[in-house]
Structures are given as structure tokens and as C-alpha cells.
């Protein structure tokens, strides 16, 4: 099972946290910090695997990808195949790239709500849900359409003043 997905930048700022076994917020921060401490000490050109026993408990590992200013980290237990997890990070990254056209950290910061939508189409309850980034993209686009079409009906009349007031 995948225990957690963490996206953070190279300063350790969390950009997306998703834990598939509930963790209280302090714990989430602590775990994120521990992961950052381990990753920031790793040079380039080493493997993408780190044993995470000390952070997430016995038998856990993490796989990460360091891309530009971001770390993408998946934490999982012995039921998953390490390289398959690494591939799944790639699927997430490729999907983001197609969604945002050359994704960068800022896209992720300002669209963290969309990140949740995308992630929910790839990982579900700690299991791999979809591995085809085309399919993920289709699902996400469908959701965006729904968001737009129904929102234009529901809120525009009421909140016009609110939108321009700020």
C-alpha cells in the first residue's frame, strides 16, 4: 500500500501532502520534515530509493524524484514494487506536465486544489488507480468541465459583487 504522497520544494516547503492513513497535522509536518532531512542530504546520481523505517515504521520505503525545484515522494510498504512506484511518480509528473503545459512549482502552488483532483485519479486509498496518463487527463478534464459549467450557473449571480470587491 502507498502510505503517503508528498510533494515539496527543495527548501522543504510542502506543496502537496496526502496521507492514506490518517495523521494529525503535527505528525504530518514532522514526517515531512524528516523526509526532507533525508532527501536534502542525498547527492544527485544516486538511487531513488531510501529506507524509511525510521520515519514511517518498519518495512516502509520511499521512492522520490527530484525535478527542478521539487521533490516528488511516494512512501509505501513491502507490498509494492519499488520501480513500479518510481514509474507511477513519472505518470504523475507527466500528467501534471500535460495539464499545466510545462509544469513548474508555481503551477503547483497556486493549483494545489487541482493537484488533489489529479492525484485522486491516480492513487485511490493507497492503491494504484490509473496508470495511463491519457485516461487521468480525460477524467480531470471532465471534472474541470463540471466545475465550470455548474459554477457559472450557481454562483455567478450571487457573488458578482464579491468577486470584484476584493
Amino acid at each position, binding site marked *: 500500500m502507498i502510505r503517503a504522497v508528498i510533494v515539496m520544494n527543495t527548501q522543504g516547503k*510542502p506543496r502537496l*501532502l*496526502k496521507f492514506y492513513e*490518517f495523521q494529525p*497535522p*503535527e505528525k*504530518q*509536518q514532522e514526517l515531512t520534515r524528516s523526509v526532507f532531512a533525508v532527501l536534502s542530504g*542525498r*547527492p544527485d*546520481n*544516486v*538511487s*531513488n*530509493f531510501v*529506507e524509511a523505517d525510521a520515519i514511517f515504521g*518498519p*518495512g516502509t520505503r520511499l521512492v522520490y524524484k527530484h525535478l527542478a525545484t521539487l521533490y516528488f515522494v511516494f512512501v509505501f510498504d*513491502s*507490498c509494492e*514494487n*519499488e*520501480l*513500479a512506484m*518510481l*514509474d507511477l511518480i*513519472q*505518470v504523475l509528473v507527466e500528467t501534471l506536465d500535460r495539464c*499545466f503545459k510545462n509544469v513548474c512549482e508555481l*503551477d503547483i*502552488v*497556486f493549483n*494545489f*486544489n*487541482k493537484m*488533489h*483532483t489529479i492525484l*485522486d485519479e491516480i492513487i*485511490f*486509498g*493507497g*492503491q*494504484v*488507480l*490509473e*496508470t*495511463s496518463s491519457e*485516461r487521468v487527463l480525460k*477524467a480531470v478534464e471532465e*471534472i474541470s468541465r*463540471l466545475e465550470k459549467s*455548474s*459554477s457559472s*450557473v*450557481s*454562483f455567478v449571480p*450571487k*457573488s458578482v459583487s*464579491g468577486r470584484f470587491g*476584493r
Partner: protein
Amino acid sequence: MALSGMRGLSVFISDVRNCQNKEQERLRVDKELGNIRTRFKNEKGLSPYEKKKYVWKMLYIYMLGYDVDFGHTETVSLISAPKYPEKQVGYIVTSCLLNENHDFLRMVINTVRNDIVGRNETFQCLALTMVGNIGGKEFSESLAPDVQKLLISSSCRPLVRKKAALCLLRLYRKNPDVVNVDGWSDRMSQLLDERDLGVLTSVMSLFVALVSSNIEAYWNCLPKCVKILERLARNQDVPQEYTYYGIPSPWLQVKTMRALQYFPTIEDPNTRRALFEVLQRILMGTDVVKNVNKNNAAHAVLFEALALVMHLDAEKEMMSQCVALLGKFIAVREPNIRYLGLENMTRMLLVSDVQDIIKRHQAQIITSLKDPDISIRRRALDLLYGMCDVTNAKDIVEELLQYLNTADFTMREELALKAAILAEKFAPDLSWYVDVILQLIDKAGDFVSDDIWYRVVQFVTNNEDLQPYAAAKAREYLEKPALHETMVKVSAYLLGEYSHLLARRPGCSPKEIFAIINEKLPTVATSTVAILLSTYAKILMHNLPPDPELQEQIWSIFRKYESYIDVEIQQRAVEYFSLSRKGAALVDVLAEMPKFPERQSALLKKAEDAEVDTAEQSAIKIRSQQQTSNALVVTDQRPANGSLPVSQLGLVRMPSQNMEASTQGQASSREEGMTDENGSINKVVPQDASTADLLGDLLGPLAIEGPQVPTVPGEQKDKNLLSALEATPEEAGPLALATVDDQPNSVQPIVNIAERFNALCLKDSGVLYEDPHIQIGIKAEWRAHHGRLVLFLGNKNTSPLVSVRALILPPTHLKMELSMVPETIPPRAQVQCPLEVVNLRASRDLAVLDFSYKFGTAVVNVKLRFPVVLNKFLQPILVSAEEFFPQWKSLSGPPLKLQEVIRGVKPLSLPEMANLFTSLHLAVTPGIDANPNNLVACTTFYSESTRAMLCLIRVETDPSDRTQLRITIASGDPTLTFELKECIKEHLVSIPMQTPPPAVSPVQPQSPVSPAAYNDPGAMLAGLL
């Protein structure tokens, strides 16, 4: 740059980003939280859009690490919104913010259900996603049937069905009853016919979960899995969107091969052939290519195929092929492949016949020990440790020693431990072993635990041939200018005992030995001073004819320490001084240490503890068990007067603190004086060995872990008691079981029973027992004072096991009902026997599973301690400081509140201890005790007599000495308080028995206590403590 679509949210995010420091950020966040709070309170003016915006902001703030303790109602209420955007936010944010037991979830359970059964697919997806991400028992009970319907519905889109499959998996994990095994075996088989690869991937995950707990029901799915694998491997009917870098869905391939690894074997020759064809194709057809992603995907499949081949125990030819591949991988440039190559090679060690091929790669593996990547270095260390045997021990250990100089600090302790263990296990000769350990201490003293030097002392003591050599070596090391404290200890100890054997060598007269040791005295810690004083006393004894000058020097040191602040040292000084004035009497009192009884290396245990306890038993562990027997063979080949000590043969656990106690105890030949925290002297009789040991050894295999007490002199005596018991069997009652491990079974367990038992005390499922024919597993579920267990009896053979019999002998405080156990277990079959438990009151007595079967002509009968222990009836509960203190105060003093100083605790860091407590179902509650070295935990105990009873626990640790702590426990029931305290204590100090006590030898009974008194182990323990 795309924006979130909500201007307020974007503005807030960029404000936070613009904050210069944490303080500014906090101010901005607080301001926003205040704003949201006001808005939420003022309900009238809030449009759905605004609600949605604020809820997203809350999630953002939550992600930044701020506690958001309001607004949950608003969030959850969005789930019931009619329009998609609000509903979506409600579902997503709820699944991030709330845990499965949150009360608010109950409020929306109907909405969620309506969304799932409703016709709107987008709503179905949202609801399924939240349920799947949160889990939750209540969801599980009320929603599983509806989720199931979606999964098998033919009218649903794949998008919904794949989510339904995974949602069902999550619900099944929470409550296995939601999947009815009978109906599901056919259904699963149909589901595996699915053509849509997205749905099939999810279904396969569900299948893995189902099959992992019940292989039996799903044999019919095995050919389907092979078919799927064939389809993918041949790239038939795989749409482009599921081809990842040219490879047909690597995830599905991997998952399918995982599923196949749950089946013990594949009997059907056609299926087997088909599968091996696919595997062969994968093994041969994968090359290292330039594109990193393609490479990863191809190797994900390849490594899984390797694991499956290993599992199926293929023909030797295919195995050698695998080893050859792995040999190639550990030398490639790509670090991920190198890492996995080493890891899988370690697993490969389990396969017989390939060790020799693996050894050919030794040089390459040693190179990996210098890899820039610590992950790879660790893998290499594990592999070297696992592959070490008598033939290559010298090379490997010397490599490890060399590596110690440059290794990362985080690895040094493990490295030192592993080197020490290998040196002990595979020493071609014992002087080499001594060399290695002394080098270890010299190079990495800080990382050498006390166990390591205790062990070398023990070896030397038990081997006369070794003593002069060891003493001479110790003398050499003392010449070095800077010496690690541990080296001072071990050298002083060895020279105290054996320097007289060197007396004729230059520089080794008592006077010179004294002088060189005494140089160190001013700089060492008190624990070392104590050893030095004993050494001086011993030197004095060997100082014959007496050299008055030396005598005077040593006496003056004793006199100096007569008023020393540390009581231990003071007492030694006083006693040695007066003893040494008695002349000849000194020789008797300070005679050389007797040989130590045989016992297992505490180191090995430590290394095992350090290892992860995963479902699949780690290769190293199993190897190390195999290797123990190697060591046996090797030692057996020695001549009868051979130099190898018995200790390598008979493996009996040695609690790590024993040796120190005995060393000091016997060296000074007096009772141990210890100080308690108030500084008063607190006499601890060296634990009246006969009674104490009898508990440890007699009850150990039967029911209760005996308290940690020095067992050194006791071995003989408990044998006495054992025979005493056997002499009066009618009175011995349940204690007849004490011979559990002495039964003349020809079939030996292949797991460490004591260790399994201990593991199961802390977790709810796992293997309890395994021998070459049968595996007994347990899965347990606890609810208040009820427990529901399932015993899994798996026949590992291709012929049936007959005359199977399982009886549960419950202690008086448990009601246990085991359902019928079939008399015959068919070949390769697993039967499940449910077992109901009711807890009547607090007690640490244990149930015993009396299990027997017949295989061929052999009758195997084992009696196993059954892990229904006190802590299973605990449920962690978080208690706030306001609730805690009144309770704590109201329960004042014994017998409701008990306090004890526990010594000889396994040194655990606070987080480690907190983890231990969590696995004991104690909720560690930070923030109640201001002292960071203390832990406070709360839990609720359930039994029929006490109902729910709150228990409060406080542990005060001493950062400067992790081996002792003070524990205070309070509850409303005196028995509970006591039993809970003892239960926790056992886990804090326990280094449980690992191997059976040595065979009973006929010794005359000298039992001081009437055996009848031992009928109730709990009472006896209570009486003695």
C-alpha cells in the same frame, strides 16, 4: 500561469508566499483563520462559492502545518451540496481533514450512500474516492454492499468500476466480513476476465488482498492470472494508452506476479509451463537501455519476475540464470538497478544451491560497500552479512573492519554489531575472533555496545587456551596513547583475570601491569573505575611473594575511594581493602572466574531485533538460522578438547545485563549494593537465583516471560526444580507443559517460536508456528473485552496431514472457544478455525495451544503459548490535560497507583519507547508532562468484570542512563494496575528466551518451594516479585 480559479484563494496563497519569515506567515495565517471563522459564524451571507473558497483555504493552511480546529461542519456540509463544485470540495477536503472515527462522518453517511447508489456517475466517483481514502469501520459496514454492486454492474463505466474495486478493497481491510468468501471465489474469477486494463489493475489489487488471507478460496483464479500475464507479455490487445514506454502496463504485470506469489505452488503442468514461458521471456528479453523511464519500467517487471521465479523454486538452470542476471545488475551504472540487484541477491540467498554462484560476486559486492549512495551501501552490507560463512568470513569481516574507518556514523553501530556476530559465528580460530573484537573496539569504540565486549570476555573465560593470547593482546593495546574507554574496560578485565599467565614476559610483571592500567584511572568514568578496582584486587592476589611497594600503592587507591561518592565504587574499595589484608583468604575470594554457562549471543538477538519484521521473513534472518547449524557442524568436527567453546554450540539466551552483574557480583564475591534514586543503599540480593531462575526458565516456555534476572549461576538449580516437578506430576498440573520444548519431536520448527510469540503479542496477524509440514498463522480482531481470532492451519506438503488436533487450554481469566478443527488437512490446503475469546478480568496468564498431527509415521505434538495477552484488551485513548490530572490525583497511592523503578531496561530512545507503547495499545499523550524525558500514556482496559477502565501511565526516563526508568501506573482496579505494570515491564526489559533450555539432566530435587505452589503461574510470579 494557471490559477486556482478562485481569486481570493490565489491572493491568499501569494500573500503567504510573500511572507519574509515564519512569524509573518503565522500572522497572515492567523488573520485568515480569524476571517474565515467570522465568515462561518455569520451564516447568512455565505454563498456556496465563498464556502468552497474558505474550505480550500483551510486545507491550504492545514497543509502548511497549522491546526485548523474549526470549520469541519462547514466542510462536511458541502458534501450535501446539490452542485458538483461544492460537493467536490466537500469530499476532497473532508478526506484530508478528518480521520475515520470522526463523529462528523456519521452525519454524512446517508448522503454518501445516496451519492453511491444514485445515478450520477460523477457523484459516485467523488463518494467512492472519499470512502476509499478515509476507510472507516462504519463506512465499511453500511456501504460495502452498494460498492460491491457498482463493481459488478455491467452498466457502470470503467471509471466508476475501478474506483469501486479499490473502495471495496479498503473496506475489506477495515472489515474482512464484507467480502463473503464463498460467493467471491467465482465472482473474482469473472472479474479477472475484465478486458479494460484500468479496471483490471484495480481488480488485481483487490485480488491480491483477498488471496493473501485465503489462498484456498481462489485457486480457480490462478490460471486467469497466468492468462493476463500472457496477454501482457505478448502485447495482445493492449491499447496504446496502457503502453508505458513501450511496455504493456508494467503495473498490472507486477501486480499479477505479486498475486501469483501468494500461491505456494502451481500444480497444473500446463499453467506452470505457460507461466514459465512468460517468465523466461521476461528474464531474457530485458536489456538495460538509455531511456531512464523505459529502463525503470522494464526492470520493475523483471525484478518481480525474479521474485516469482525464486518463489516457485524453479529448476536449477533458471535459478542460475537469475543469479547471473543479478550479478550483471549489481555492476551496472544505473544506481536503482544496482540497489535492487543487491536486494534481490540477498533474497536469493534463501534459495539453496546458489550460494556458491553468489559468492563469485563477492568482490563486486564489496565495491558496493563504497558506493556514494547510502541506500546501496546498506544493501551491500546486508548481503555481505547474509552470504558470510566459514569459507569467506575472514575476507568479509576484514573488509567490514576496514570500511568501519570511513563508514557513515549512522551505519557504524550496525556495522560493528554485524562484524562482531560474523566473527563469532564463523571464526576459523578463536584468536582471530579476539583480534577482530579488539580491533572493533579500538576503531569504533563508541559504536561497540557493551554486549560485544561482554561476549569476548565470556569466550576467553571459557577457553583456557585463549587466555594468555587475549591477555597479551590486551597488554599490547594498553601501550597505545589514546584508548577508548571500552578498551580500557576489556583490557583491565582480561589482565586482572589472566595477566599472571604472562608474568614471565617482559613488561608483564604485576607491578608493570598495574602501572600501565593505573595510568588510565584518572580519566575514566565511574563504571570503568569499578572494573579497575577489581583488577587491582586481582593483581594484588597474584602479587606473590608480596611486593610491599605494589601493595602499598594499591591500598592507597582503595583507601582513596573508601569515601567516594559513588556507592558501588565505595563499597568495592572498602571490601577489597579489608579482604586484601586477610592474606591467603584473598586467593579464595578472588579466584579466577568460573566458566560461563552456555548461552546464546545477545548480539544475534540484537541484530535480529534491529531487522524489520515484514510479512516475508527476511532472507538474512532465515539464513542466520541456517548458519547457526553450520556453526554447530564446524565445532563438532573439532577434537574433543578443541579450542572452540561450548557457547557456540548451545545457544541459550543471555540477558545482556547478566554478565555485568555476574562479573561484578562474582569478582567481588558479595551481594550487589545498588543505590536507588534517593541515594540510599538498597540491597539487591543477587536475585536469589534459584527462585528467580526457576521463573525465567520454567515459566518461560510455558506461560510467562520471567522477569529479567541474572541467570548465571542458576541453570543448574532450575533443572533441579524441573525434575522435582516431574517427580510429582499429579501436583504439577499445567506445569507439565513446562517440558514443551523438550518433547522428543523429530520435526523441528523452522521459525523461532518465542520470537513469533513475542511479535504476535504486539501485532494482530502473523505466523505463530511453522515446521516443514505445517504453518500456523493467526489473525485477530479485538473489540472491547471480546476477541475474534482465526487460526490458519496450512499444510505445506503434497500429502495430507492426518490426526490433526488442536486444543486450547485457557487460563482462568479467559473464556475461549475454538471451533471444530478438521482431522485431516488436505495437501497444500489451508483451513481456518475461528476462535472466540472473552476476557473476564486482568491477568497475564496465558493460554496454551496444544497442537498435534501425524505426518507419515511421525507424530508431532507442540504446545504453544498463545498470544492473547493483556494488552490486546486495551484500547488507546487520548486524554486531555484537563481530564488527566483530576484522574491522576484521585487515584492516589497503592494499590490503585503503583510505582516502580525498573533497571536493566532495553535502552530505547523516547520515540522508540513511544512506538513500543503504541504497539501495546497505549496512547502516548504528549504535552501533559512538562519534562521532555517523560512519557505519559493513557488507555482503556476492557474485561467483563471491570468493563471499560481507564489506565494512566507515566514513565520517567533518565537521559544519562537509558537502562533505568521509573514507571507509575494508575487505574481503578488494583489487580489491573499491577498486571498492567508487569505487562509493560516485561516489554521494556524483556529479552525473551529464544531457544529451549538445555535438556534436563537428572539431578536430585532440591526445590525449596512445594511444587503445588506453582499451579498458578500468575500468583507465583506475583508472590515473588
